[in-house]
């Protein structure tokens, strides 16, 4: 029941916001909605960890993986919403935007969150497709939020490329129904049914279907070579949206793809899908790390870095075995840290008014707290030993070295290249000599708090997993 509740509340908040005139109310509504969403999804996650699967109605069913991603959406969504209140106030103060835009922003934000929840929790592939398309549509305007040519261009590319990708995905999705539709019934098939009847699927058809799905949703996940829209969109969107896009949306698309992988494996065994995943994962890792080596814009830096991490997760699922577990953890860590990094980079952006790495120097002197946050986040995300991401990476690679040594070694070295470039950029930004015109300013707690919380969570997770989360992950691993 909570599920219906939280989704309806989100949508309701959005709809009410359309008519509300008062800014405070809007902010209050959306923050409240996201808090409710957070609580609801925690309850659901607990339930799932107890009963294995949770489906309030035939239309909805949340499995372990879904629960995990729900938690991510809820947490990051909450952080982003809280953050955006203050962030937009700052921008209105610098009169970059007006009230109507703020309203639009929150409406679309809530819709976006709702769509993502739907995509994860629905039990029907087509509906999942519809909701993912809905995320595209709701974020398109958010990306063109600042209404500058560059933002416009990013949004246009985002719209066109994703639509194409998703249409291909649509075709692939429907190809899975070839057998199910021949069955009597109203043709409303959910994941379980598809998986159950996958064995009767024509193998060649299953292969084609998976290719379409992988290309289609891969576009949304941002796997090379379909990643091209991602850096543009992520770098041009408002910071909280970039955090959501990079931290959450990718994962949503990812798990939908994974569910199709499940069906395909049930039909023709895992090898086929694994090989495809490895190819695309490796491509993404290599391309992202190479491009990042000479990156001039820190938001794009982060964006490409998400591509790389998605690639690593994909590799993990491709390697299978231990890699799956590692990839799950990796996705979780990445979602939280990457959004934290984006949020803190937002503070930097507000301070320096530029997203160029060359312009940003000496954060540690101008914004001490943010600087520390940024640095810690950077250390975690690049897989520096004490933190979780190091172990996930190592586990992924150690899963790979058995079967695909060359792939692993290439991935390892591109990871090293990425670390070096990232290290160089991050240190020059954080330390280094601050430009004279920027003076030390005090930081707003509302802006520094959300990323702080996210990083704290990752800290906690990287040293001890709470039992219910552990149970969820293990179940998910067993399932996928």
């Amino acid at each position, binding site marked *: 029941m909570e599920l219906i509740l939280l989704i309806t509340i989100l949508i309701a908040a959005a709809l009410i916001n359309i008519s509300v005139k008062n800014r405070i109310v809007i902010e209050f509504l959306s923050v409240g909605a996201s808090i409710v969403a957070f609580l609801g999804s925690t309850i659901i996650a607990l339930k799932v960890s107890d009963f294995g699967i949770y489906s309030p109605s035939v239309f909805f069913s949340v499995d372990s993986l879904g629960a995990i991603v729900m938690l991510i959406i809820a947490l990051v969504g909450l952080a982003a919403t809280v953050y955006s209140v203050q962030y937009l106030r700052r921008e209105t103060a610098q009169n970059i935007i007006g009230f109507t835009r703020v309203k639009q922003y929150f409406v679309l934000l809530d819709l976006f969150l709702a769509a993502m929840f739907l995509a994860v929790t629905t039990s029907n592939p087509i509906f999942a497709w519809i909701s993912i398309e809905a995320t595209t549509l709701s974020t398109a305007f958010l990306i063109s939020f600042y209404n500058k040519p560059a933002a416009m261009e990013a949004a*246009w*590319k985002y719209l*066109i*490329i994703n639509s*194409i*990708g998703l249409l*291909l995905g649509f075709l692939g999705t429907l190809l899975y129904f070839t057998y199910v539709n021949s069955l009597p019934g109203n043709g409303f098939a959910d994941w379980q049914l598809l998986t159950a009847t996958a064995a009767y699927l024509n193998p*060649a058809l299953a*292969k*084609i279907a998976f*290719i*379409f799905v*992988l*290309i289609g949703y891969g*576009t949304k996940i941002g796997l*090379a*070579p*379909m990643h*091209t*829209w991602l*850096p543009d969109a992520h770098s041009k969107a408002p910071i909280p949206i970039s955090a959501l896009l990079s931290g959450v949306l990718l994962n949503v698309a990812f798990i939908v793809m994974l569910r199709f992988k499940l069906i395909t494996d049930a039909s023709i065994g895992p090898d*086929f899908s694994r090989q*495809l995943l490895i190819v695309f994962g490796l491509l993404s890792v290599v*391309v992202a790390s*190479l*491009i*990042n*080596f*000479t990156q001039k814009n820190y938001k794009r830096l982060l964006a490409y870095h998400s591509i790389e991490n998605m690639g690593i997760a994909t590799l993990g699922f491709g390697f299978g075995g231990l890699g799956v577990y590692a990839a799950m953890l990796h996705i979780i860590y990445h979602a939280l840290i990457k959004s934290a990094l984006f949020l803190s980079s937002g503070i930097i952006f507000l301070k320096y008014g530029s997203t160029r790495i060359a312009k940003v120097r000496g954060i540690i002197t101008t914004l001490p707290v943010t600087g520390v946050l940024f640095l810690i986040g950077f250390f975690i995300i690049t897989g520096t030993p004490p933190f979780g991401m190091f172990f996930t990476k*190592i586990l992924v*690679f*150690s899963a790979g*070295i*058995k079967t695909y*040594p060359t792939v*692993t*070694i290439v991935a*390892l*070295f591109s*990871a*090293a*290249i990425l*670390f*070096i470039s990232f*290290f160089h950029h991050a240190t020059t930004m954080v330390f280094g000599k601050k430009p004279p015109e920027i003076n030390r300013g005090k930081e707003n707690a509302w802006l520094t708090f959300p990323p702080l919380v996210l990083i704290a969570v990752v800290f906690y997770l990287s040293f001890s997993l709470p039992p219910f989360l552990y149970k969820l992950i293990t179940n998910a691993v067993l399932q996928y």
Partner: protein
Amino acid sequence: MTYIGTTFIVLAFLLFFKYTGSFDFATVKFNVALIPLPIKNAIFIFALVGLGTKASIIPFHIWLPAAHPAAPSHVSALMSGVMIKTGIYMIIRLFLDVLQPIPAWWGLTVLALGSISALLGVLYALTEHDIKRLLAYHSIENIGIILLGLGSALTFYSLGMPSLALLGLAAALFHTLNHAIFKSLLFLSAGSVINEMHTGNMEEYGGLIKYMPQTAMFFLIGSIAISALPPFNGFFSEWLTFQTIFQGIARLHSSSQWIFVVAAGSLAITGGLALACFVKAFGTTFLARPRSAEVAHAKESALSMRISMGTLALLSLLFGIFSGPVTILLEKISKSFTIFQNVTSLVSVSSRQSFNVGNGFASVSAPVLFGFLVIAIFLTTFIVRYLVNKNQKVTIGGTWDCGTDLTPRMEITATGFARSIILIFKNVLKPSIQHEIEYRDDESRYLPKSREVTLSVGNIYHSYFYRPMQTMIHELSLRAKNIQSGNINAYISYIFIALAIALFLVL
């Protein structure tokens, strides 16, 4: 920089995992036999590169001299004393313990690397005039010496001479210990000098011995110890290393013998050059007249610092005098390795602390030597002071300099001191000398107004190894950026092509 090293280490461990299915050393060691030889060699190379970067062996050393001036002195003391030793520890652990049995060429490779980094390390140290970079390069040199002991140990063991291997390991461990002591001492005293002078550039020091005598004393002791002069500890560990290598020369034949000969030669020359380098360091820092006004404000360092330095100095003397027992102890420790469980030791300490290696091949008694020196010094002083011409008049005068008045610019600089050696080894160091002469007038070229000589050493590792690598990656990255052409039609065609290729590969 070190991350590349880490990557290689990770790679080596992944290879372990691949064949033994575990990251745990015990397990790996238990079924090390599962690893085929070529893979083992690959592991060796990866591990050597990785750990070599950690331990800053030439040519993987460039991060160390860069890191030291940045770090505060006590941190550098730790870095040189302890941090780079972790690499050594891992090398010992892996090659002597986990990966046994190993082919002989591993040991010889380590030996060769050791001699290279010992020799080049001290040469680069000679070229430096920043005191901390100088000390950093000496750490590299000492790591090389440690590797010499280690490499000979590896070689001996794989050639079936376990007791010699034990000796080599003991030598390596002893030198590790000693280096930790005297290098920390040197860094601390250098640090207190820098605190007073606010610069690491030795060209601006000079005459500090009059302003901070005790620090000078400690630095002197450190220098004596590190340049392996008896009776301080540096000498005895180097002596042991020498003995190990001599044994190698005596027992082995053909190519391996030659590698040992080269190792001995490089070690010998390294000793000589280290001596020269520390004459330069101590001389230009503490002796002669001040080269900058800063010196006059220098004060003796704080008591706590002096105490800690004093302790270290005392330690380095004690470890020298009781080198025999210490070595025995270290051998006991190294016997904890499974391969050395029941190996007859070659080192023995007889009465009068005489400290024998390889029954009568070599022996020295540190206390006797020390006592002998002390007695001789006292005797000489006594005779010269009090027996011969007691009422000698001593007058203080200026330094004679052909009648000209002597300015600080006339005394030798650190660069000038090392210049001859640099020019002798110019094929290795690739020095570049630029003369900038400003004449009084353009007509006569005989009256230079000012002449500036810059003597700099080309960093061949940057220019031939790291720079090309970096440019290569940079190029690749620029190529990769062409993917992001900004043309949406191109982007869509990527998707189309990916789809087509995938479909065609499947169907």
